[in-house]
């Protein structure tokens, strides 16, 4: 008989303003105009009359009360901004997905798979050929030899890998350490799993890991630590030294590590290092990644989690209830993609570095304080030279008066104050778009 999870309502929940919110990088912002009614998430106060069979009216409460864990899901600032952006015809350097498309050879592979009839349920944890290709790629990237059938799980994007890892491996009340600023699905899925979040803030200019703070946060009570490298939104890449320090703390305290490495192929200023490849770490690490950023096909939703069998088991259980199986034709195409020659990845890096140069130089010329970004296609800047009171006010101003979209980073922190001076720009756009955005800012953004 299935034992039920004991869900404790999290008394250590983040404050109201910082509760999980829809990701800015999700499709609901810019791909459609949505009328978001500001419905309260519980409808319990409304009553209405219902006639019963014998005609006697019965006053009932409106029944659809949303679970307590979601009480704080409301229309987000991002949604409001996205509507503003469309209204003002702003150039979008906020969205975390490309405005150009993926390579033809991968698209053709997907088309072929559809035509060949590969349209039914794939094996739940991945099409065997794809798992094999993932294992081969992992070996190439880290030197580690893994079993594709026991240690690789395919998911609907890295987002689902994260959700499955949290729900499959975290018990309610478990302590998990997060580094802020963080991709917002981390906080949301951790709260769905009932975890106690301990947050360590990375600060400009280099967003280095505050080792002393980490040492006092981590203990034998810590269940897991979640690391995103290369890091969204700052572009920071965890150094070998930082990873070694974290590794020894994890070994000492028997802590699991969840690594989100989706930008690993967009590592510009240094080599990407996988925590799993450090001595003693593979056995306690879940390494997550996806196709989307590397191959500019973010809408295909092909991700994966690589972990030793005893951790993979938990991830697979949760995955089987979350989505059961991942898109079949896209897995076949992804198999082809992963076998791309080195030249593909080299060209990818070159292209992105050229785009980055345009944006970074442009932002500096405009007058932002630009922090160094070693990887990902994001860069964060300090907007305070322009005299707006916080990041949200600045972004609104940027849309309305200048016609460019950036992301206010305060929403990536547990404490919004920590992010109020920073905004995030992306350079995953074609060069013309980047240049136009820079021009608009040069023209209309004036220092105070």
């Amino acid at each position, binding site marked *: 008989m299935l034992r039920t999870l*004991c869900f404790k309502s999290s008394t250590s929940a983040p404050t109201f303003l910082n509760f999980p919110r829809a990701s800015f990088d999700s499709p609901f912002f810019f791909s459609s105009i949505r009328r978001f009614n500001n419905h309260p998430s519980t409808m319990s106060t409304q009553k209405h009359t219902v006639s019963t069979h014998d005609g006697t009216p019965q006053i009932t409460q409106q029944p659809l009360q949303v679970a307590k864990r979601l009480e704080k899901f409301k229309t987000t600032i991002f949604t409001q901004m996205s509507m503003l952006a469309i209204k003002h015809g702003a150039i979008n350097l906020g969205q975390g997905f490309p405005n150009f498309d993926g390579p033809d050879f991968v698209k053709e592979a997907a088309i072929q798979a559809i035509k060949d009839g590969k349209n039914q349920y794939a094996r739940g944890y991945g099409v065997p050929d794809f798992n094999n290709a993932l294992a081969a790629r992992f070996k190439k990237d880290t030197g580690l030899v893994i079993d594709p059938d026991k240690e690789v799980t395919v998911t609907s994007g890295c987002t689902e890998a994260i959700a499955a890892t949290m729900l499959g491996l975290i018990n309610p009340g478990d302590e998990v350490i997060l580094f802020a600023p963080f991709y917002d699905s981390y906080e949301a899925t951790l709260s769905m799993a009932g975890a106690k979040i301990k947050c360590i803030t990375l600060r400009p200019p280099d967003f280095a890991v505050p080792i002393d703070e980490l040492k006092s946060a981590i203990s034998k009570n810590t269940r897991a630590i979640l690391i995103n490298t290369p890091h969204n939104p700052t572009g920071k890449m965890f150094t070998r030294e930082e990873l070694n320090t974290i590794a020894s703390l994890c070994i000492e305290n028997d802590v699991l590590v969840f690594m989100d490495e989706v930008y690993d192929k967009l590592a510009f200023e240094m080599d990407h290092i996988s925590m799993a490849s450090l001595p003693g770490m593979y056995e306690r690490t879940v390494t997550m990644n996806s196709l989307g950023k590397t191959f500019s096909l973010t809408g295909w939703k092909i991700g994966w989690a690589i972990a030793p069998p005893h951790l993979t088991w938990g991830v697979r259980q949760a995955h089987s209830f979350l989505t059961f199986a991942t898109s079949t034709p896209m897995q076949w195409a992804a198999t082809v993609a992963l076998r791309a020659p080195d030249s593909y990845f080299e060209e990818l890096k070159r292209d992105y570095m050229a785009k980055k140069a345009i944006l970074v130089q442009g932002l500096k010329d405009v007058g932002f304080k630009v922090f160094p970004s070693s990887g990902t296609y994001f860069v964060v800047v300090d907007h305070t030279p322009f005299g707006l009171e916080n990041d949200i006010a600045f972004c609104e101003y940027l849309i309305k008066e200048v016609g460019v979209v950036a992301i206010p980073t305060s929403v990536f922190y547990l404490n919004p104050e920590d992010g109020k001076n920073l905004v995030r720009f992306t350079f995953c756009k074609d060069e013309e778009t980047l240049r136009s955005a820079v021009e608009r800012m040069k023209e209309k953004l004036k220092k105070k």
Partner: protein
Amino acid sequence: MEEKLSSVAKTFTPSPIQELSHLAQRCNAINLAEGFPDFSAPPCIKQAAVSAINNDFNQYRHVQGICDQLALKMNKMHGLNIDPLTDIAICCGQTEAFAAAVFSIIDKGDEVLLFDPCYETYQGCIAMAGGIPVYVPLDPPHWTLDPEKLMSSFTSRTKAVVLNSPHNPTGKVFSREELEVIAECCRRWDCVAITDEVYEYITFDEQKHETIASLPGMQERTIITSSLSKTFSITGWRIGWAIAPASAASAIRNIHVKITDSAPAPFQEAALTALSSPTKYFETLRIEYQSKRDFCMKLLNSVGFRIQFKPQGSFFLFAELPKDCLLSDVEYVKELIKQAGVVVVPGHGFFHGKSGSDQPSDESFRHQKRYIRVAFCKSEATLCAAAQKFGELMNAKGSPKLHC
């Protein structure tokens, strides 16, 4: 490291079906177990997906047109007024829609009623959300709903009822009377109905699929989940949805965004083509599946089965083992693989034991090991091959040789 597994992960055990799958593979068995077609998806829908990929619909996407078409369909089929802008969440298959629906309304300790036998996945979701599954048995041989059993299963902690109709594994389509009973309970106990309607277009004879949401007082307390998978034979594309009052749909959408962010973009585009299929497509679907159903029934009758419950919908047949067969369902399935080279699913995995507070006798649970589930979502060639294999089982006198 074993102690690092979450409490939920530790309760899951390897599936006996896995063992059977391996046996089936070794024997190269004909597969009437898996619940997905072995024939092609409709060409025009595949073409739509191909065009979408070529036309660069490959980034994160929400295709509002799907919601518009679903709203039209729900109005046409069930008379429901759905707001396409607020009442629909597109998800990665009905699986994700259901998971998100459960996470959206189930708090720790909430009880959720499920009709037994039932599809395995529901309880896993409910457990992950901290809910407690409570099983209401349907009565064999016709899987009828006993209102007493249903009503006595409600407590002050009951939050929701899960309704899968047309039903996997039995092929039952809940009648209007049964829907009324469930609806009345939901209204009286102020509960939510979460439906799984993936087989909504696969009903037989004069049977029509009705959604419980169309009953009085139910739309505001129902979350409908469904998908393209079974209707269009594209189970691998992962396009599904939840339809619910705006506050729940919004919560489901927000959760979906945290679980997967977006359903596969090119297939969302192709969904537009699928959902605008002419009426004739759906009629043909029914007719073809009905003839497969009939073929399958004949097949089983020829090897000694006496099917008491003819499927009214879905593409499953839930058949009780012949009275003179002394094997359990698992043993029978093994024998069928070895002797006839055909694989089906043993039924006991769909049952969940005791229900309510009555202490059941062993006798009343014997039936749980006496059923097999046969999937007839297979090509003519596959079904004929199965028929031939079954034919070989017959001895000279026309009785099945299957050692029973």
